[in-house]
Each structure stands twice: as C-alpha cells, then as structure tokens.
C-alpha cells in the first residue's frame, strides 16, 4: 500500500507533522518552570514524607483506606471523594471562565511532564534546529549516541514516575525495598511498567496530540469562555500588515504593522499553530509566543504585547468585566462546596455503627414478662487508636442491653461484629417502638455515635 492516497481522502486525517518546539525564555516561561518544579517536586517527594508512623499520603487500596496527613478515609467516606472531584471540576470551570486555559498552560500533568521531557531532549539532542538536523540526517555514531542518551533519560524518568505513582498506593519504602531485593510482586511490577510507559509515551511522543485528540477538557473548555475571558491573542490591528524591515525604522512610515513576520511565535508553539490566525482550539495558553514576541519587540524597539494575555472585549476596545454572572455563579457554588467540604470533614463521625435486626425471630418473650429483640451490631473504628466501646439503648421506658461482653475492644481501623440482646418490659409501652442505640468510647468521650433501630413487641 505505497500508492499515494487521493488528496480528498487525506484532508480529514492530515498526516501528523512532528513539532519541534523552540526553547523560550521570559516571564511566562519562568512561571511555568517554577510550576514544573513545584508540582513535580510535590509528586516525587510526597510519598516519602511520613506522618507519625506511616506514610503521610497513602491511598491504601489493598486495605481499603486512604491516609491524608492526619485523616483516615474509609469506603464509607466515599462521598468525600466525590465531593472533592466536584470541587475540582468546578474550580476548573471557574478558572477557565476567568483566566482561560491556565490549567493547560501551567498545571496539567501533560504539560508538566512534556516540559521536563523536552528539557531532557534538549540536553541530549540540542536545540530546535540541531534536533531537526539530527532527525533529517543519516544514522551516524553521534546520532546513535545522542538518541540513546535521550532514551536512557526518558526511560529512567518514566520508570521513576511509574514507581512513584505506585508508591501512592502501596507504601513506597516497602516498594523500594522490594525493588532492591527484586521481590516486587507481579501486579506492582505491572503497574510500575504501565505508568512508566504511559509517561514515556505521553510526554515523549504524543505530547500535543494528547491535548488535540485525547483530552476531553480541551474539547469543551471553550464552552466556559466568553468575551471577558483571558486569552492569548495576537493584536491584529497593531501587527498587520506584517513584514520584515530593518531595525530602527518606523514601520508606519513603510505602511507596516509591528509584526516583523519572524515566525518565532510559530516555532516556539508546542502545538505547532500560528497564533496570528486568531484563537484556536489547539492553543493551550502556554504563553510561549508571548514571551518570544516580547523579546523580539524589545529588540525592535517596539512596545511589548503584540501577542499578549487579553480579552476579546479589550481587543475590540471595550471594557472587560471580571465580575460577571458566570464568574459569580461558579464562584459562589465553589465557595459553598469548599466550605461544606471542610465542615463535613471536620464533623465526620470517627466511629460508625450499623445495626441489623436478627432475621430469625421478631421478638422473644422471656418468662418474667419481658421481651427481647436481638440485633447484630457492626462497629467500625475510624480513629487512629484502639477504643473500648459500650452500647446503651434508649427508648420510651428503660431498656437493658445484654451481650456476651460488656466492652467491645476495637483496634484502629477494624470492624467489630457482635450480637446484642435488648430487653424491656413486654407491654410498656404497648407494641413496637423506635429506639436509639448510643455507642460511645470509654477512652475518648468525643468518639460517639447514635443510630435508630426498630424494637418489636407484642401488642397484647
């Protein structure tokens, strides 16, 4: 199948041309570098930080509990994770409405890892033109050496990333020891390789294609945009007509705009677009073109900002409104959810109590005019310490709790099941009632919970 395909058929599936982003320095490049250091620093170091006896942040899937600093989350706390994801989504909406694709340009893992992989590429293969030349040229010993060095760095970085990632789910120190002793289990090995390969492929090869073809956010982010959203824009009015000119000449006298058509903005673009054609879906708002154009404008003696962060309204000489209904609604929802989240986490009950009625009998009458109901109770101790619990029952009249042991000793994080018998006089009050079961810890008075249960009795 080497025959050239007809042009009409190719048009929809344009052959992907490799993008060689040119290195860039400037305000926003420094901001992104700082962001890369902070975010990757957090990612790679966090699993190594301990909180008391254990890893500070550990999503312990085998044990079904999540540790985040001093907090322990159980499957029963799943609502908090959902809540957190909703907060994350809403903050994305909020920041997109205000600042455009800030996430894409500075914080997205795809951007952060691509940036670091690009750095490794630059160290081993040289700058943009050197890389292009190297790729065009024949396979020489030097090319082989440079490509091997790059692969070595990329594969090492990928494996280290995979290892760190798994370290968020399995205690990382144990994992490190297992790697050293070559006793890593099959699943850990698989996931280390899987995430290592994903990092290598996404940051090394796919790069901007992830943003263009794979990322759902990139597709729908424009729905959050309006004419007051911060976007990176080429000032057509000021720049056109573009054209080259000797340094120090007045472009207006030659009938030219400020754009000297040096195409540096195209060369630095990680997604390979020309920002001068207007806002495009591929633009991840990394501001590389802003930085490079500013250096060119400085050299030409023109004011900065031919390409800049601005809004559609500002470009058209209208007032920009930072505060507008969209921002207020997103902001209010976000604030409410965040406050609610903090309050809910703070008020989270440190113990949970499930009460299940005995299915075999409704009630049992004892010889001395009393009635018994049997329940199975399940206690989950969500605190970090062992607790001794006692159970009380409260109803319309006095209730007695009978069980094999008086105190239930529950280790931290454990579930304790026990059958209990609740006894009261058969006919006071008449028939069934709803009772309250109170569970409290003898070791810590704050550890307490209540739950309702149905108490059945004969109605005479």
């Amino acid at each position, binding site marked *: *199948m080497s025959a050239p*395909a007809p042009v009409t058929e190719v048009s929809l*599936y344009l052959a992907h041309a490799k993008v060689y982003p040119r290195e860039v320095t400037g305000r926003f490049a420094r901001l992104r570098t700082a962001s890369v250091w902070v975010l990757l620093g957090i990612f790679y170091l966090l699993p190594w930080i301990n909180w008391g006896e254990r890893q500070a942040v550990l999503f312990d899937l*085998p044990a*079904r509990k999540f540790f985040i600093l001093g907090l322990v989350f159980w499957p029963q706390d799943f609502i908090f*994770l959902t809540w957190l994801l909703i907060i994350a989504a809403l903050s994305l909406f909020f920041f997109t409405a205000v600042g455009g694709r800030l996430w894409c340009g500075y914080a997205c893992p795809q951007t952060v890892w691509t940036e670091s992989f690009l750095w490794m590429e630059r160290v081993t293969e040289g700058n943009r033109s050197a890389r292009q030349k190297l790729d065009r040229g024949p396979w020489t010993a030097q090319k082989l050496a440079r490509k091997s060095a790059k692969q070595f760095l990329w594969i090492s970085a990928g494996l280290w990333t995979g290892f760190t990632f798994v370290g968020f789910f399995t205690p990382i120190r144990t994992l490190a020891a297992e790697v050293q002793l070559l006793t890593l289990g099959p699943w850990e090995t698989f996931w280390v390789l899987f995430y290592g390969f994903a990092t290598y492929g996404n940051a090394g090869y796919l790069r901007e294609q992830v943003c263009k*073809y794979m990322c*759902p956010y990139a597709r729908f982010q424009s729905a959050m945009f309006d004419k007051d959203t911060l976007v990176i824009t080429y000032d057509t009015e000021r720049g056109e007509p573009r054209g080259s000119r000797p340094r120090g000449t007045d472009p207006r006298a030659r009938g030219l705009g400020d754009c000297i058509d040096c195409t540096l903005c195209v060369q630095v673009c990680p997604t390979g677009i020309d920002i001068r054609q207007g806002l495009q879906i591929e633009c991840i708002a990394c501001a590389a073109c802003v930085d490079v154009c500013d250096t060119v404008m400085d050299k030409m003696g023109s004011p900065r900002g031919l390409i800049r962060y601005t809004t559609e309204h500002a470009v058209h000489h209208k007032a920009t409104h930072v505060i507008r209904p969209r921002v207020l609604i997103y902001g209010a929802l976000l604030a409410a959810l965040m406050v609610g989240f903090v309050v809910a986490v703070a008020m989270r009950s440190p113990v949970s109590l499930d009460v299940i009625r005995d299915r075999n009998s409704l009630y049992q009458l004892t010889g001395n005019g009393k009635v018994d109901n049997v329940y199975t109770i399940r206690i989950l101790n969500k605190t970090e310490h062992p607790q001794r619990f006692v159970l009380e029952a409260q109803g319309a009249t006095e209730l007695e709790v009978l069980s094999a042991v008086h105190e239930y000793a529950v280790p931290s994080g454990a579930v304790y099941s026990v059958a209990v018998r609740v006894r009261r006089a058969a006919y006071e009050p008449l028939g069934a009632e709803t009772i309250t079961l109170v569970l409290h810890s003898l070791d810590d008075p704050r550890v307490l919970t209540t739950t309702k249960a149905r108490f059945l009795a004969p109605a005479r």
Partner: protein
Amino acid sequence: MSTPPPVEVQRFARIAGVVLWSAFLAAALATMLCFAFIDPLALGRGEPPSWWVSRPQVYAVGFFFFWFVGIVAAVLAWYLALGSRPPR
C-alpha cells in the same frame, strides 16, 4: 521512517486510539465507583474463590473487565454511527 503510513493505517490508528482511550476513561471511573462500594473480599463470604488472592488483583481484573466492556461499547457506537449507507 520518513514516509508517513498509508491513510487507511492512519485512520485505523486514529479510531483505535479514540476507542481505547474513551473506554479507558470510562473503565477508570467504573472501577473507582464499583470498588468504592464493593469490597472484593466481602463477596467471597469468607471463602474467596481460588482464582483471586488479594484485593489489588480483583481491582485489576475489574479494571480490565470494564475496559473490555467499554471498548465493546465504543466500537459499537462507532460502527453504528457510520450508518448503513454512505451519506449523501
């Protein structure tokens, strides 16, 4: 290396990528939701079947199962969306 692959291969790669990726995202979500509510060890009622040994294994098997189901759905969606006759 320098000649791009034929257009059929590119188109297939593009569709395969979309199918695998969308199914992957759905499988990640499904796995998280499913195992947040279901403890694999509780399913065995204390007598786990011999083919599963630990929770992570069940999570992984669950993930690949959801991925497979997602791929089936995505391929079907793509296939049915093509329509039965070429668009006019």
